[in-house]
């Protein structure tokens, strides 16, 4: 063997070894950090245990926590499965649907419309966990077919998420303190549903792909997340095209397609403002022009479904109680549609819905420490016909004291007696009400005379996109 040939072999071996170490390390990290029993893993594992299905539910976490297949089956004697998972993109739903249609005699498809899933570049790492779990049971050619469909998204190809596909923990991971337990569960063969219940504190698996939480959202918490923090984007054309593909696939296979918008809490709906009507117009038109049924439970009249605060676990997801009530409502509407062919009378416009809200949905409080003192500014989400009134309170260590009693003024200047940490709070109620408060929120402010902070305090959730530099 010549010296050149030896050198070439040595180089190639070096590349192989280095590459192998990188691949092993990435897989080791994914093994340690990606949750044992992710919801996607639960769905795909449980799906593969189903013998025959005739109704499939797809969508994001909104849908995963909104429709209980057992309720549907009890009414229609169907065999339903909820295949919705957190952050499931529309393209992933399409790929999953194709798989299900190929393997089961599906009659009905219920797709959960989550407008944020139709925004551009919203999902942190599209097509990672869900697809990785799907591919565990797929032949290589099937993976290639799935990829070839998903990779047609040009914008996605140009973004960082396309690379992070290879690093699934970027999207979904356990906390630093949970890594050891996570690895243990993966090694000792803990059933995926049990592992999921362990990793997702409070989440209970009920069967047929469906799991949920029992907790009720704290509407008076110090901080809350809303679509205001996420920002509102126009719907992305590619995502609408994927939705159209889903409709078309159902038409080709003779499957009934229902697009269902799961309800969100009133305050979230209020923050979506004019965007909601525009989103509705585009998606409803698309679904109906492709022969599907469009049911928006945010805009349902109370005779079909009446949204209550106790139905929600967080700023957009339903809890177990809410999903049970919604599933019943869904069944009744579908029954009526099957008998009459029209259920449009049970829905109203966005403006009518918001006008009908007669309570304070949530309170917000911001502060700005100035040379004059602490400036407080309150706001709230409520119906268009409600006039709110605000009461400001401050706790300097001996309990809350009212510093400005109920009035329609939403601002207050508090002059602290000394430097220190102060808890500030606002109570809000409808004008004319005599309850102590309907909603309140509070947080702490550090005050030092002559050296206040200029940045207003805001309820800033984790993961909010930052700005790049000033250039």
């Amino acid at each position, binding site marked *: 063997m010549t010296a050149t040939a030896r050198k070439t072999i040595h*180089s190639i*071996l*070096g*590349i192989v*070894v*280095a*590459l*192998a*170490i*990188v691949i*092993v*390390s*990435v897989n080791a*990290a994914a093994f340690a950090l990606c949750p044992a029993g992710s919801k996607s893993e639960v769905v795909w594992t449980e799906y593969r245990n189903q013998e025959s299905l005739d109704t499939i539910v797809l969508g994001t976490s909104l849908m995963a926590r909104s429709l209980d297949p057992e309720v549907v089956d009890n009414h229609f004697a169907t065999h339903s499965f909820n295949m919705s998972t957190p952050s499931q993109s529309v393209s992933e739903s399409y790929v999953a649907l194709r798989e299900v249609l190929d393997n089961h005699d599906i009659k009905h498809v219920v797709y959960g419309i989550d407008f944020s899933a139709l925004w551009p570049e919203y999902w*942190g*790492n599209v097509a990672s966990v869900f697809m990785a779990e799907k591919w565990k049971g797929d032949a290589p050619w099937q993976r290639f077919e799935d990829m070839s469909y998903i*990779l047609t998204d*040009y914008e996605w*190809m*140009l*973004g*960082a998420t*396309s*690379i*992070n*596909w*290879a*690093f699934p*923990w*970027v999207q979904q*991971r356990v906390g*630093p303190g949970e890594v050891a337990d996570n690895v243990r569960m993966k090694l000792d063969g803990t059933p995926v549903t049990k592992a999921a219940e362990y990793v997702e504190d409070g989440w209970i698996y009920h069967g047929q792909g469906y799991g949920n939480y029992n907790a009720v959202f704290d509407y008076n918490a110090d901080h809350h997340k809303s679509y205001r923090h996420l920002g509102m984007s126009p719907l992305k054309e590619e995502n609408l095209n994927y939705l159209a593909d889903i409709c078309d696939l159902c038409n080709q296979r003779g499957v009934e397609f229902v697009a269902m918008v799961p309800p969100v809490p009133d305050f979230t709906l209020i923050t979506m403002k004019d965007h909601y009507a525009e989103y509705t117009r585009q998606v409803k038109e698309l679904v109906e022009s492709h022969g599907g049924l469009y049911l928006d439970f945010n805009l349902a009249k109370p005779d079909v479904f009446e949204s209550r605060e106790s139905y929600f676990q967080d700023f957009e997801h339903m809890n177990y109680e809410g999903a049970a009530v919604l599933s019943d409502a869904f069944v009744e509407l579908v029954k009526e549609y099957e008998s009459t062919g029209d259920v449009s009378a049970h829905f109203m416009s966005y403006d009518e819905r918001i006008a009908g809200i007669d309570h304070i949905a949530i309170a917000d409080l911001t502060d*700005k*420490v*100035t*040379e004059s003192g602490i400036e407080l500014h309150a706001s709230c989400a409520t119906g268009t016909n409600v006039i709110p009134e605000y009461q400001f309170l401050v706790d300097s260590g001996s309990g809350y004291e009212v510093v400005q009693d109920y009035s329609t003024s939403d601002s207050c200047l508090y002059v602290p007696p000394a430097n220190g*940490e102060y808890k500030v709070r606002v109570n809000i109620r409808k004008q004319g009400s005599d309850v102590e408060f309907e909603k309140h929120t509070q947080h702490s402010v*550090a005050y*030092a005379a*002559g*050296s*206040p*902070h*200029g*940045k*207003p*305090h805001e309820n*800033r959730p*984790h*993961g909010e*996109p*930052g*700005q*790049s*530099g*000033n*250039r």
Partner: protein
Amino acid sequence: MQFYSLAFVLFMVVALVAYYGIGRLFGKGQWVVLLAASLAFYAFCGWQNFVFVGVTSVSTWIGALAFAHFDGQSKEARSQAESRDEKKAIKRRFVRKKRLVLLAMLVLNFGILSYIKYADVLVRYVMPDTTWTAGILLPLGISFYTFQSISYVVDTYNGKYAPERNFAKYLLFISFFPQVIQGPINRFDALAEQLYATRSFDVRNARRALLQIGYGALKKYVIADIVVWVVDGIFDNVGPGIPGSAVVVGILLYAIYQYADFSGGIDMVLGFARLFGVQMADNFRQPYFSVSLADFWRRWHITLGAWMRDYVFYPFALLPAVQRWGKWLTRRCGKHIGRTLPACVANILVFFLVGLWHGAESHFILWGLYNGLVIAASDLLTPLWDKMNKALHVNVEGKAHHVFCIVRTFIIVNIGWYFDRIVDPNALSICFRNTVFNFHPELLMPALGRVVDSHLAMGLMLAAIGTVFVFIISVLKERGIDVAGAIVDWPAPARGLLYAVVVLMVASSFMFGMGSGFMYANF
């Protein structure tokens, strides 16, 4: 097109396979692949970019050919001239023609750059309430390719090298895709031959390139894209009494962010170019280890500094009027002042232009002038420093003095970053005032608490690890160690482990950052 995207990876793979494939098959013509890749890159980033890069390329290419044409005509005419005076007259005539062409090139290309970059800001200075805009997005890399093409025009005007007669080759020099995002500002005589050369794939060179890309990605994604959240959180809403301690921490983080973003991006593009066997000009040399502000500017954005030196500083300092002024000063005020003061004025002019290059906003101009004035003052006062060092028996060759100079320069540079980062003049004055008079260290943590939540705190830990890593590498490089050269010779398992650590850190950074654009992109 983002570097950290599947599209760019595929783009690079296709370009590299085509580049080395054509080299192997035909033994020539690889530069055509580079040109095609560069034009494709431009097309990905918006077809409108073609218009601007096209105007600059065509005009400067023709301009340089005109110089050669006039030189040829001049030479021929002079050879037929009979008297010395006639020869001189012919030369003057052609020099005038060349000057006119040069002037036209400068006006056209700097005119386009100035209009696109400054029109909006200048109109708002004059009419603050106007809604008028130039309506043109900054074309990709316009500052960089304009400076690059002007250097080519001036060099060919001065006869430094012969102009490129093949327009396609010249277009490649202007549009070579790794340089268009954020530089460096390459010179024709250093880059062109590399672009047009034929070469085969070199494993060792590729390893080095991948290391450079990884190192750049680590700086950009692991450090800059996480730290920027805190910097923006502190400075985007400066109030009348933001604690000085928070301002100082914000500025120090900005120093880290700015270096990590810009030098990280440059490392990546140098690595991309190196994969094609092209070594572009270096833009950074451990700038935070500088011993003076002038030294800092020889290590920070090196190609811009060198451009300003060659095309502004020297032409200005060598103007006959400035030379005469220097001599006059020497006679009146002594040798030091006579030699230094004209250079100081030239420096102030250069840094005013550096500030202006960054933007027409007042804070950029102030930042540029600050740098120019500090360097000028330092030069003028050199005899005083020397006397002080002597009187205090300071060992200027000792390590302690070296460290002192580094720390002193770091502080001076960071004062400059106040002007650079704090855009609003009112906020700028508040930040300076509170840094001195309202430092309040006890309010630092509450102030940071408003910006840093537990999620970001974890990200900052990752950024801190990245920063330590970069610091160690920088110390080694400062000591003259070729770190990359050493690593490429490591055994494969050790290299694999290093690659794995970098890959894991860069990927994990996306749990906290969003992969924002480069600070100097579209400059």
